[in-house]
């Protein structure tokens, strides 16, 4: 057992001291911060060129309102605090309606093609009336850039307000009364009411998006990342040991199973280190934002426990692959199915967060390779899951982990000294079965 510890210590230090570990440690938050910054930059980098829109107002009463709203918007809403343009100005011009609608639309389309105008709007004669008329109720926006929806969105709001008010007038309904009557309701998404220590009823907090989504999602991602970083690293170390003929010296000193065990413990400690560091960082940030109590301690403990078991399961598989191949490039085809297994929970994470007690979430969390991420995610989504589930998950995972370690141990013994042609999955299965 002493030798297992010797291997454990070397493996842990070798990984934690390696540049790639430090880079990962720094890169992950940098990438996150970077993506936020890039999104901001991209957000400000929108096309702010003016949009010249021709309006064919067949009602004859809407253009002035549109023009007025556009001018107001151009004056107030298209620059940021520093006075820089962040949105395109809308320049609307009126085009007298012609009787031949099709011909006029063709003519205006041609003007769009000639870059004379950016787009045009055709408003049907009946739009402002309270009595529907299918033929004349249309508002049509014609452009050659259907994905640029900025103007449509704006026009929709402006026209709706104006048109609805006019329809009320026509129907002789007092606008204020009707608006009051049809005002929308806004459902607040709240947690449960509780009684505090002094016996007062505590205000129900608005169920924070942070707990409902960010925290479980973050937990799963963290676990996923730590396995994805440490597992292949372990595999690579083993391949290097094979290539450098270190493996030969090692098996002359320590039984292969103990060797693998030491490495597995080492890599598990590495991934727990990674998780702990990020959790500590996350807690620090949450505390600064006054939201530290959103992450319950009990979940952190569960997460470390599950993280460790996940690492043992996947670590032994990655280790076995490392022992089976002679070159890192030979490992790619074998790593592929393992990665899919690893990514599986990520694929279903959104439906699982939305329905943490649904059948998909339930059964997925009892599929051992997915159990760690699924359980941790579901526990983090309020109101959590019945306690027996995460507890029942542990023996199941341990069983699977034991199988992985046992199988990997056999692959390790056979593969560690094998050089040359990479084995097929079938060969590896044979090693596992025959020992």
């Amino acid at each position: 057992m002493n030798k297992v510890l010797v291997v454990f210590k070397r493996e842990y230090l070798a990984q934690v001291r390696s540049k790639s570990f430090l880079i990962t440690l720094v890169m992950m938050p940098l990438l996150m911060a970077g993506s936020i910054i890039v999104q901001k930059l991209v957000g400000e980098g929108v096309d702010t060129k003016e949009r010249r829109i021709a309006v064919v107002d067949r009602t004859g009463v809407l253009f002035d309102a549109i023009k007025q709203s556009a001018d107001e918007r151009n004056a107030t809403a298209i620059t940021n605090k520093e006075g820089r343009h962040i949105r395109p100005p809308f320049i609307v011009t009126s085009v007298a309606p012609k009787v031949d609608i099709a011909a006029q639309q063709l003519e205006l389309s041609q003007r769009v093609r000639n870059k004379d105008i950016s787009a045009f709007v055709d408003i049907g004669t009946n739009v402002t009336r309270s009595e529907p008329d299918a033929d004349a109720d249309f508002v049509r926006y014609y452009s050659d850039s259907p994905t640029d929806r900025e103007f449509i969105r704006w026009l929709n709001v402006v026209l709706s307000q104006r048109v609805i008010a006019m329809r009320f007038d026509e129907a002789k309904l007092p606008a204020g009364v009707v608006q009051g009557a049809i005002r929308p309701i806004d459902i607040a998404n709240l947690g449960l009411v509780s009684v505090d220590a002094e016996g007062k009823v505590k205000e129900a907090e608005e169920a924070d998006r942070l707990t409902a989504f960010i925290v479980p999602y973050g937990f799963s991602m963290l676990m996923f990342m730590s396995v994805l970083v440490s597992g292949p690293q372990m595999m690579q170390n083993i391949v290097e040991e094979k290539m450098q003929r270190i493996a030969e010296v090692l098996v002359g000193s320590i039984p292969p199973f103990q060797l693998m065990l030491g490495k597995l413990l080492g890599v598990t400690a590495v991934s727990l280190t990674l998780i702990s560091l990020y959790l500590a960082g996350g807690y620090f940030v949450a505390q600064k934002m006054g939201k530290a109590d959103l992450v319950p301690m009990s979940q952190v403990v569960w997460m470390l426990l599950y993280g460790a078991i996940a690492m043992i399961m996947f670590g032994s598989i990655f280790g076995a692959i490392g022992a089976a191949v002679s070159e890192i490039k030979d490992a790619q085809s074998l790593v592929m199915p393992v990665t899919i297994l690893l990514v599986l929970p990520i694929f279903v994470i959104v439906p699982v967060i939305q329905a943490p007690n649904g059948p998909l979430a339930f059964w997925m969390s009892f599929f051992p390779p997915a159990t760690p991420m699924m359980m941790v995610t579901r526990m983090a989504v309020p109101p959590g899951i019945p306690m027996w589930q995460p507890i029942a998950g542990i023996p199941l995972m341990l069983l699977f982990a034991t199988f992985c370690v046992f199988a990997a141990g056999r692959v390790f013994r056979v593969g560690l000294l094998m050089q040359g042609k990479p084995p097929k999955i079938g060969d590896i299965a044979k090693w596992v079965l025959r020992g």
Partner: protein
Amino acid sequence: MNAVEMSGVTKSFGAVTAVRDLSLVVPSGSVYGFIGPNGSGKTTTIRMIMRIFYPDSGDIRVFGETHSQAATDRIGYLPEERGLYKKMKVQDVLTFYAKLKGFNQPGAEIDAWLARLGLSDWANKRVETLSKGMAQKIQFVAAVVSRPELVILDEPFSGLDPVNLDVLRDAIVSLKRDGSTVIFSTHDMSAAEKMCDQIFMIYRGEKVLDGTLASIQDTYGADTIRLRLEDAGCLSSLQGVDHVKDFGAYQEIRLGDGVDAQRILSTIAARTRVSLFEVARPSLHDIFVRIAGTEAQAS
């Protein structure tokens, strides 16, 4: 007490028989040389002694025991090439290997070995900064630092310059002096001749030589003559000579069965000036070439 006893050992890889019906006894405290052409089964034999490979049939005992796995603290092992973590410091990698052998306070031993091999300044350097020769010496230290009773060295001299070769040779001799048994494989015949108590040669998976140098040479008799001649060309048409080898500065001929050396001398002396004429037993090198010559040339 014998360090290693092998009897009737056979090992195949697929259709290839790497070692066939091999029996070998390595007495404790001896230096045993393994020679043979590349691919003839030396490393397989060594790995079987290490229990890295299991024999298909036959029996291998190390210190009288048939242990089930390679891991043993009593044997130090230097594989054929490399075997060191590139990113680790010399001191750390040696400590790691020593601890793996259950030798938990190796500091003094490491210092002593590094000093002896002239590597003290490199203790805190990373392995990747070492030259090939230095790395090889470090690897040797890794194999012996835990004071194993049996040291197995696979090609310890390959790629070493003459100075380092001498250093390593002295180190091996000192291991023997301290009571260790040493098995090493080598292509350096003169090293094998000078250092080994016994020599074992394997060819195409089978044992072809085994014994002391003297006993091996005895089986070949004194059929070799070393010459230094003014005109080496006259050897070509000589009667009763099996084999002529011209090294440039001197020549070596092998006599056929029953040919008298004296008669050859008088024939040669009649043809050219003779400045050296020495009747000798064949060197290990010659014996090796006689056994494996055609194959070695082909490869």
